[in-house]
């Protein structure tokens, strides 16, 4: 009996989580099996989408609006593939990075539940279902945040929990208003809705909730501590994948709205600009490597929101793709960077940026991966990040929005500045008294960040097919 790859990508991690929780000793094997089976399901799904444009299943045989249907189009499959690929590599990294038996035992079920929630988000077409999914993600993500068990991690996890709950409740209140107005919860109903007071209130509440969840300045307060204090694989998952779920919902919703208001769009862009500047300043000031990487996530989220803002002003049909590219690029590069940072911390014994050049240990491969990931995040060619930034700026210039071009340029320069703080430390080892030990062993844990970073840089070469794939199934508006 062949199982629908759509269903498999949801149920494989779910059953994997159940099994990994039941059999803690075999958790790693079960977890890898589940992730691998998703990696097998996603290409099958991609083939179906390539052939048909979009695939959907009405669960239980109840068509929306009564039932819930799952739908995969180019954008969802792109997100699913990114999640599966990053997930597989981070899982491989976690095999080696988690030494504590207790951490290993709990990492796998939580991570697989997280994966269930994220795949569910990418396939969902129902706003209440999205609410439940973001709660699955939130609880699993908080569990992963505090996996290290330190006081800082628990404190950051609590802040994260509060932000998550509040964001989800704002979203739920928004769902209430939408139901009040149109009496249904599916995307099709949302598109068909006439603009009205209750609709605006509902969508505004949902969007604010998502802004809180995706940590757009000034609602980013919970992110840096949570991402910086988690263990390395958890940080990679949180920064590379979890934030993307909220961004994805935001992208979906903003395109389901009756044409968004000019003021709202400008406001979102302004907040994005604030995030780029403020995050850049904080990254320049950060003392610890992982904190710097976490602040760079804030910057990148700001950049993605600037792309959204451009999307609103210049018409949706073209420029949302810049945002989608940036989301994909950041997911891959940031996961690689956090894993590399974790490796560096493991090898060197600390992650204080100022003292990196005093260490007699030189974890060459991890440093190399970090630098490659930085290339994508800064946006140098040929990385995927470069293509994303380029299409953002190209669109902005074509529409005559020079201020967004300026902000993007400033952000780029700042990211060069803060990453070179780290890279300079990698290159100089003149403050070490003892001879420098070059570490060049091919540990399994070095592979994952390296592969991620290399693909972040080289995926830019595949930008054209990725862009045409994203359009499959007409995710946004322009129905044939």
């Amino acid at each position, binding site marked *: 009996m062949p199982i629908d790859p759509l269903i498999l990508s949801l149920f494989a991690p779910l059953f994997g989580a159940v099994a990994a929780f039941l059999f803690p000793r075999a958790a790693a094997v079960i977890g890898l099996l589940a992730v691998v089976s998703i990696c097998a399901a996603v290409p099958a799904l991609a083939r179906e989408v390539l052939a048909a444009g979009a695939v959907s299943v009405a669960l239980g045989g109840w068509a929306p609006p*009564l039932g819930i249907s799952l739908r995969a189009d180019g954008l969802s499959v792109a997100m699913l593939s990114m999640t599966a690929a990053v997930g597989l590599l981070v899982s491989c990294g976690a095999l080696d990075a988690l030494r504590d038996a207790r951490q290993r035992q709990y990492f796998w079920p939580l991570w697989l539940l997280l994966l269930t929630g994220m795949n569910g988000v990418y396939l969902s077409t129902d706003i*209440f279902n999205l*609410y*439940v999914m973001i*709660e699955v993600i*939130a*609880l699993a993500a*908080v*569990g992963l945040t*505090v996996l290290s068990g330190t*006081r800082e991690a*628990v*404190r950051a*996890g*609590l802040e994260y*929990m*509060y932000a*998550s*709950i*509040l964001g*989800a*409740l704002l979203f*739920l*209140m928004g*769902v*209430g*208003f939408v*139901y*009040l107005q149109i*009496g249904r919860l599916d995307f099709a109903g949302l598109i068909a809705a006439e603009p009205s007071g209750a609709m605006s209130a509902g969508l505004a509440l949902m969007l604010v909730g998502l802004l809180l969840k995706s940590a757009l300045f000034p609602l980013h307060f919970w992110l840096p501590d949570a991402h910086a204090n988690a263990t390395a694989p958890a940080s990679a998952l949180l920064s590379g994948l979890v934030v993307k779920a909220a961004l994805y919902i935001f992208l979906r919703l903003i395109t389901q709205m009756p044409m968004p208001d000019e003021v709202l769009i400008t406001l979102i862009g302004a907040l994005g600009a604030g995030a780029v500047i403020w995050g850049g300043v904080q990254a320049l000031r950060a003392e610890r490597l992982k904190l710097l990487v976490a602040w760079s996530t804030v910057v990148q989220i700001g950049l993605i929101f600037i792309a959204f803002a451009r999307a609103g002003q210049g018409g949706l049909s073209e420029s949302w793709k810049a945002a989608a590219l940036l989301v994909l690029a950041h997911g891959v590069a940031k996961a690689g960077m956090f894993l590399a940072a974790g490796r560096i911390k493991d090898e060197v014994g600390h992650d204080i940026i100022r003292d990196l050049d005093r260490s007699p240990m030189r974890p060459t491969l991890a440093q190399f991966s970090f630098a490659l990931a930085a290339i994508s995040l800064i946006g140098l060619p040929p990385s995927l990040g470069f293509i994303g930034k380029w299409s953002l700026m190209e669109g902005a210039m074509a529409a005559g929005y020079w201020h967004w071009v300026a902000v993007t340029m400033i952000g780029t320069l700042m990211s060069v500045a803060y990453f070179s703080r780290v890279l300079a430390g990698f290159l100089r080892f003149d403050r070490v008294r003892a001879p420098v030990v070059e570490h060049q062993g091919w540990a399994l844990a070095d592979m994952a960040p390296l592969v991620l970073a290399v693909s972040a840089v080289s995926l830019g070469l595949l930008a054209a097919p990725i862009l045409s794939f994203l359009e499959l199934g007409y995710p946004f508006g322009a129905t044939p």
Partner: protein
Amino acid sequence: MTPDTIYGMTGIAVFAIGLAGALCAQDRLRRMLALKLCSVGAGFLLVVAAWRRPPDVPDPVPHALVITGIVVMVSATAVALALIRRLQTLEAEDAD
């Protein structure tokens, strides 16, 4: 003046009060209570949206949604409270 207007306003007021508390409360437990208020406010809105003037029966779908919301909220509360207790333990250990 019908029950749905009255309780709809109640729900909105409770949600706003909870929001104010969630933004402003300093104490950890109090912030959790504020978030619980928000969730009850959102529940009110959905129950009110489902209400139909008798003898019509209410729409069952929002009721199911609120039940889901209540269960989700108790899960989130349990995790948050566990974090609060754990943090307190860790801080007490450090203080010693």
